[in-house]
């Protein structure tokens, strides 16, 4: 870094000298802006390569801008169409189709013969979409096998079965091999070993085959016999391997920096599987490519920089300074690169991997596949049924958008409606009495104008736009009339109460709302009655403490509860264990997952009802209770005949609001159960979210969901009983 700073300073000094000496315009030095989402170590490699480029091009300055990985794609999507994009950016190849479909990329043009000769054709091919090359491959990464030298005791174990066999000699709690089994990305290698694919060239789901069934069955077997840990997250895999509780781990190059220097291990390509006729476990690789955004201010310079980064010289710099697994073949002959044994091992593993398909449907594979894997590992379905269901779900999510409809009818209807409204208004304005009262009210309209404008902009306009969106579909958002609604209400031709159908999710949502509101109101009233008693000591303290769950942001609470329901590490199972109860897999069954969501949302929701009740209780005159005492009422009769009926007018609106909030309580469902198991605990609003953001970005479809939710809630609030407050005349 300091070296670079010194060099920049020197360059600046030189530039200023030149400026002083020769009166050339300042624009003689061009600046190229490059966006990337690299971590620190990889960024060092990029910096080194850029420095070399700048040395060769003294008139060019390269400005590197790092973005967090999670926000990178949306940042590009927002910036490029508005002309605020970079000259060049580096991103994973599998996002290529979505970028191309959104017209975010410039054609890269043909590579030079030297570059073509130096780069593996498979990697270049992965950047070619519909016959056009959109970028140049810089580096690649894939999962590899980490093997602990200590636990493997120097043995070379070529097959998955060899590792599984170690299970017998390992102590309890130590696994033969660990990977994120629930994740399609990690487990796809096993499918490949069996010759199965999850997506074919035409973008069709391809795992529902006998080979896929066999691979999934093998996965379930490995988990069942304890060779591979169940429910392993990336963190758990890391912890197991780091602490010597796994002989081997399947993970990416990102695991290495997290491992202590004291741990001796080596990196290998993934093993073969005897059961699959010695098929090799082939993971996906992702290729980091330099891509030129549409509207790049300096496309030629950007192309030149990209070519340099991919060239052997640029690649050697990136490999040595940034441990990047570079794509250039000849770079690996450089002694500095070739001597890095671990890097070479990752490179070997990555070359053995298969570039992740770039088909736009690839995104839609992961959701259904993840669910299928989890379902089989839970023992809820056979591999065959689970994969068939996954295929069905994939087809459902990737079905073609409804065809374009002629919008004439809608436009005419809209115009007629507007005309009718206009005619009505004018006819009313003809009445002089109406006109006079309107003129009289003008100042009043002036006073409420700001609120009118604010509500219009913040509430009515988004609502109208959302409702409009629901009439469109497809990536190009073409007009489809009411097709989205038709699809939703008919479950796209499937079973009306089938999995993921609107009606089923509506049923779950109603159950969710009713149970929550019952608990909210029950607990809220109970606590309020306790706190309202003048004899309770420290009342104020209790009140404050009981309002805390309400004051904490709900996502924080939701994440905390999610942690508490964790099977191995959660507090709830730890408490149950004290009473001798077996650990519960909270998110493995609908009833327990629903309960977990319910517990979280009850925790979040009761304080509101308690506060409302406390307020309403103070407004009940004391002498009503005295009158009831004299009339002969017992404490229970006073509660049921006076307190509860008197609370009714205050609680009804609170219940209505609580019902609406609960109906749309996205945070809890999304963060606690995340729809597990198998999407069964999704509610309408989280389901709408999934259609909008994870299932191929079907925005129009999701908007139709939102409109239906809106209609249901309007109906709900209309249907709830209303009452005038007592004492109101």
């Amino acid at each position, binding site marked *: 870094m300091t070296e670079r700073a010194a060099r920049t300073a020197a360059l600046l000094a030189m530039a200023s000298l030149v400026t002083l000496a020769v009166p050339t315009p300042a624009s003689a030095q061009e600046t190229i802006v490059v966006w990337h989402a690299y971590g620190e170590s990889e960024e060092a490699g990029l910096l080194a390569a850029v420095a070399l480029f700048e040395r060769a091009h003294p008139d060019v300055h390269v400005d590197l801008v790092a973005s967090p990985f999670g926000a990178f794609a949306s940042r590009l999507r927002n910036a490029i169409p508005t002309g605020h994009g970079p000259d060049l950016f580096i991103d994973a190849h599998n996002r290529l189709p979505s970028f191309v479909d959104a017209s975010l990329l410039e054609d890269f043009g043909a590579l030079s013969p030297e570059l073509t000769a130096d780069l593996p054709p498979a990697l270049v091919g992965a950047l070619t979409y519909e016959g056009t090359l959109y970028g140049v491959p810089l580096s690649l990464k894939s999962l590899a096998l980490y093997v602990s030298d200590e636990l493997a005791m120097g043995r070379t174990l070529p097959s998955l079965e060899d590792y599984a066999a170690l299970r017998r000699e390992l102590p309890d709690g130590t696994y033969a091999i660990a990977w994120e089994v629930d994740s399609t990305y990690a487990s796809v290698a096993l499918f490949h070993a069996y010759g199965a694919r999850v997506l074919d060239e035409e973008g069709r789901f391809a795992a529902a085959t006998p080979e896929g069934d066999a691979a999934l069955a093998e996965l379930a077997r490995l988990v069942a016999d304890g060779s591979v840990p169940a429910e392993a997250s990336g963190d758990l895999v890391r912890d197991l391997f780091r602490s010597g509780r796994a002989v081997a781990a399947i993970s990416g190059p990102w695991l290495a920096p997290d491992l202590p220097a004291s741990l001796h291990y080596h990196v290998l390509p993934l093993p073969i599987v005897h059961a699959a006729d010695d098929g090799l476990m082939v993971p996906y690789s992702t290729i980091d490519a330099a891509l030129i955004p549409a509207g790049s201010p300096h496309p030629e310079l950007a192309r030149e920089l990209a070519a340099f980064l991919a060239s052997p010289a640029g690649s050697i710099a990136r490999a040595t300074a940034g441990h990047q697994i570079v794509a250039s073949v000849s770079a690996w002959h450089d002694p500095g690169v070739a001597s890095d044994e671990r890097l070479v091992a990752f490179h070997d593993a990555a070359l053995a991997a298969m570039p992740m398909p770039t088909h736009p449907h690839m995104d839609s594979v992961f959701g259904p596949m993840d669910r299928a894997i989890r379902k089989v590992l839970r023992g809820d379905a056979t591999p065959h049924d689970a994969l068939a269901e996954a295929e069905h779900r994939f087809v459902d999510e990737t079905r073609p958008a409804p065809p374009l409809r002629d919008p004439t009818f809608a436009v005419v209807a809209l115009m007629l409606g507007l005309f009718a409204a206009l005619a009505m208004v004018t006819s009313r304005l003809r009445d002089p009495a109406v006109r006079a009262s309107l003129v009289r009210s003008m100042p009043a309209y002036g006073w409420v104008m700001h609120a009118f404008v604010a509500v219009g902009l913040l509430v009515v306009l988004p609502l109208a736009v959302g409702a409009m969106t629901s009439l469109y579909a497809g990536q190009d958002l073409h007009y489809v009339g009411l097709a989205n609604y038709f699809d939703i209400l008919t479950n796209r031709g499937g079973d009306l109460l089938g999995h993921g159908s609107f009606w089923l999710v509506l049923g779950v949502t109603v159950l969710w709302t009713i149970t929550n509101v019952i608990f909210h109101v029950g607990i809220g009233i109970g606590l309020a009655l306790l706190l309202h008693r003048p004899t309770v000591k420290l009342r104020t303290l209790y009140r404050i403490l009981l309002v805390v769950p309400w004051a904490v942001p709900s996502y924080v609470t939701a994440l905390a509860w999610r942690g508490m329901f964790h099977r191995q590490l959660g507090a709830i199972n730890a408490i149950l264990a004290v009473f001798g109860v077996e650990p519960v897999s909270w998110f493995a069954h609908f009833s327990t997952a629903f309960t977990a969501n319910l517990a979280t949302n009850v925790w979040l929701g009761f304080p509101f009802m308690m506060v409302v009740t406390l307020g309403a209780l103070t407004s009940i*005159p004391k*002498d*009503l209770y*005295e*009158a*009831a*005492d*004299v*009339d*002969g*009422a*017992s404490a229970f*009769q006073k509660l049921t*005949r*006076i307190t509860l*009926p*008197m609370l*009714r007018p205050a609680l009804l609106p609170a219940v209505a609001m609580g019902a609406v909030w609960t109906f749309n309580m996205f945070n809890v469902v999304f963060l606690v159960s995340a729809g597990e198991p198998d999407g069964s605990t999704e509610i309408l609003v989280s389901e709408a979210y999934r259609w909008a953001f994870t299932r191929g970005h079907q925005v129009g479809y999701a908007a139709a969901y939102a409109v239906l939710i809106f209609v249901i809630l309007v109906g709900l609030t209309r249907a709830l009983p209303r009452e005038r407050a*007592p*004492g*109101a*005349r």
Partner: protein
Amino acid sequence: MRLSLRGIQKSLGGTPILRGIDLEVDDGELVVLVGPSGCGKSTLLRTIAGLEIPDAGTVRIGDRDVTHAAPRERDVGMVFQSYALYPHLTVRDNLSFGLSIRGTDKKTIDARVDEVAAMLGLEKLLERYPREMSGGQRQRVAMGRAIARRPALFLFDEPLSNLDAALRSEVRVEIKRLHGRLSATMVYVTHDQVEAMTLADRLVVLRAGKIEQVGAPLDVYEKPASRFVAGFLGSPAMNFLEGTAEGGRVKGAGFDVAAVSPSGPTVLGVRPQDVVVGRGEEAGITLRVEVIEAMGFEAYAHGKVGDVSFVARLTPAELASAHVGEDLRLVPKRVHLFDPNTERTLVDD
């Protein structure tokens, strides 16, 4: 049903409110507890109802000791100052509340409600809510609620204080009539002497947590036991002049009247209506008139005797002789004498 209070004491928040109350109320009697604000009359009523438990003393209703019994075990009906109607219930449900929570069968309840409604003229209001009625109507519902259960003892806590004057006298008569019809034992609390005088079979005047005097209303009025009782009953209030008794006369600044009293300092009490305008020199009280209030059938002359305020009632005939700024000679027809130290009545004339 008899009510018997013995040695009732009660403090609220460390302040003694009731300081030893003994009272017997006969079956069917209407006793009015009267006194200024803070004299403890409401607390005493609440003690009878069971809403307060006395610190000492006993409460007996009939032959039961109910000192520590809950209100619902006492069989009392109470009409609250605020009416305390259940706002979420119709008049019918308000009236039947006490019956229905005791599990009375529906037939009896309906009969009882209809009977009470007829008695109080509430037939057309039965389906209304309290918020839909006037103050007088609510007041009647509150009474109806107490009556419907046919309790052994009725308690009224200033039931008329939220009504306007015209309505008040109307309801007052209604209560009197009810008492006659139900011939029930009633304890009635008020700070209004007119209510006290007109309603009571027996009057109990309370002062600072103690009973000052008990008796039939007219007896108490005619023969007040103390300067306090004398001043409290009667409107306008009795005039008090401080003087000295000697030789069958009581003299002071501006007055000299015949009255039998032990020699020494004495307070002379004269009700405004107990004077006539005198002729000649025999007149005993000289009133310097400052204001005259004429009401047609009578008039009041306000002024000073010596430097003490004094009010005299004048007949229309006497009004002619009264002039603002001039002296008026008054002859008392009847006087009350009080010990200036103990404030007790000295002699009943």
